[in-house]
């Protein structure tokens, strides 16, 4: 019999240290979630500032109504994959709406954002191909690369010159090449310099995948993400995104103009062998997507609130991870002990933010990570700044 306690003794030891210090590692429990910005934690009222609920859609009346109706009309779940019995007209409708919104010919949806990356990456590259990924990429990107069997080459964060060097070294290698970027990087909230990367396509022949998980809905004039903001949409071959942030639901998508993309449902194992999303989740996503177009003021509001939080925390003398404001505002803390103490103090004073440390962050980087929702009030932002002043400065 394999002894898991022995096998993972280092993880157990680390987990125990955190639990002793009061951090319920990966087990924080919220209750009485009454709106996108308020909940209770251990019976205490908490202001939520770490939910990635950028557009505040989770309690939108129209989304909730759409979810109720789908529950009544379609039941609680599909009990199967799209390849079998789990394909409903709602799924197809959402794919059409997303393709239209993104100005792409084709779109496929997945049960989670994680699966979207697994499915797309492992379909587009296989053994004999090469995939180039930014070192700060999300775990779903790394796992998709591993599943693909392609050779995985990692380049320095947001460094197009470093990527160029690696493409040059591999320019005569056989097989296809896929470069993967993220729009807004989840920990620091920094943007990829897309122009610099797109410029490389002229010299090196590669397919470019952009994961807009954190930028979809909230960045760009129409919310289509960083590629829209930076005016490079036509150069992006594959867009991947999630429903679990700005759309306030769960699921993921990928979109493309390539006809080959339509083969994906016949090849991608994460797609074929996963049950499809429950109808109520799809229905709320369809409604939330409509609101991206109907309520552009939410993006303007998010921008205003993000700038206010960024400026407020900076004025306290805190070390902000990224100079350019975005809905992700992360504060760097000197070391792990300080991080744990300050995160606990914030929670004790009624504020939830994300705690982030290596290997989720670059080595030696410890973050108290806030995310701004358009559902926050200006007074909430002032309260966040005030609690940081009390607990972190």
């Amino acid at each position, binding site marked *: 019999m394999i002894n898991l306690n022995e096998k993972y003794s*280092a993880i157990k030891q680390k987990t125990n240290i955190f639990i002793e210090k009061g951090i319920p590692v990966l087990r924080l429990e919220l209750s009485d979630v009454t709106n996108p910005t308020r909940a209770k934690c251990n019976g205490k009222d908490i202001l939520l500032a770490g939910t990635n609920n950028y557009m505040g859609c989770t309690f939108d009346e129209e989304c909730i109504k759409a979810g109720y109706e789908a529950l009544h009309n379609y039941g609680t779940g599909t009990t199967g994959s799209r390849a079998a019995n789990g394909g409903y007209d709602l799924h197809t409708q959402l794919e059409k709406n997303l393709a239209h919104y993104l100005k792409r010919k084709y779109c496929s949806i997945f049960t989670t954002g994680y699966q979207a990356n697994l499915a797309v990456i492992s379909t587009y590259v296989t053994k004999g191909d090469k995939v180039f990924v930014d*070192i700060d990429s999300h775990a779903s990107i*790394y796992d998709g*690369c*591993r599943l693909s069997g392609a*050779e*995985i*080459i*990692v380049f*320095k964060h947001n460094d197009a010159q470093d990527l160029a060097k*690696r493409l040059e*070294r*591999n320019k005569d290698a056989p097989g296809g090449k896929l470069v993967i970027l993220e729009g807004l990087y989840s920990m620091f909230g920094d943007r990829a310099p897309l122009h610099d990367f797109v410029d490389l396509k002229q010299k090196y022949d590669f397919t470019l995948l952009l994961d807009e998980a954190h930028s979809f809905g909230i960045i760009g004039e129409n919310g289509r993400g960083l590629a829209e903001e930076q005016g490079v949409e036509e150069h992006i071959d594959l867009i991947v995104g999630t429903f679990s942030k700005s759309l306030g639901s769960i699921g993921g998508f990928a979109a493309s103009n390539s006809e080959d993309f339509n083969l994906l449902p016949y090849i991608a194992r994460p797609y074929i062998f996963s049950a499809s999303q429950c109808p109520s989740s799809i229905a709320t996503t369809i409604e939330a997507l409509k609101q991206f177009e109907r309520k552009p003021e939410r993006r303007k509001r998010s921008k205003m609130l993000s700038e206010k939080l960024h400026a407020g925390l900076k004025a306290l003398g805190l070390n902000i991870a990224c100079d350019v404001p975005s809905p992700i505002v992360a504060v760097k803390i000197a070391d792990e002990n300080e991080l744990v103490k300050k995160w606990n103090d914030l929670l004790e004073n009624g504020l939830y933010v994300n705690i982030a440390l*290596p*290997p989720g*962050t*670059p*080595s030696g980087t410890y973050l108290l990570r806030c995310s701004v929702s358009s559902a926050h009030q200006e007074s909430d932002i002032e309260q966040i700044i005030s609690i940081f002043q009390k607990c972190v400065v």
Partner: protein
Amino acid sequence: MSNESIQKIIIEKLSAISTTDAHIDENTKIIADLGIDSITVMEFIMEIEEKYNIDIPQNDIVDLYTVKDFETYIRKRIN
């Protein structure tokens, strides 16, 4: 480049990121003995790539347990 100098460079770089007091030699297991997390390993790999102007695919790293494994791998790649 001699075996010794490649090994010396690897050991120097590992000494800078090790989280334990373990003595580092050619038999040292890079992750198990030095308490280094996955992201730090990747940063270490990038320094080695920079130094020798090579790409070390992630797929290859899983087979490189010890300093000696690493040294042998780099030698093959630069030759």
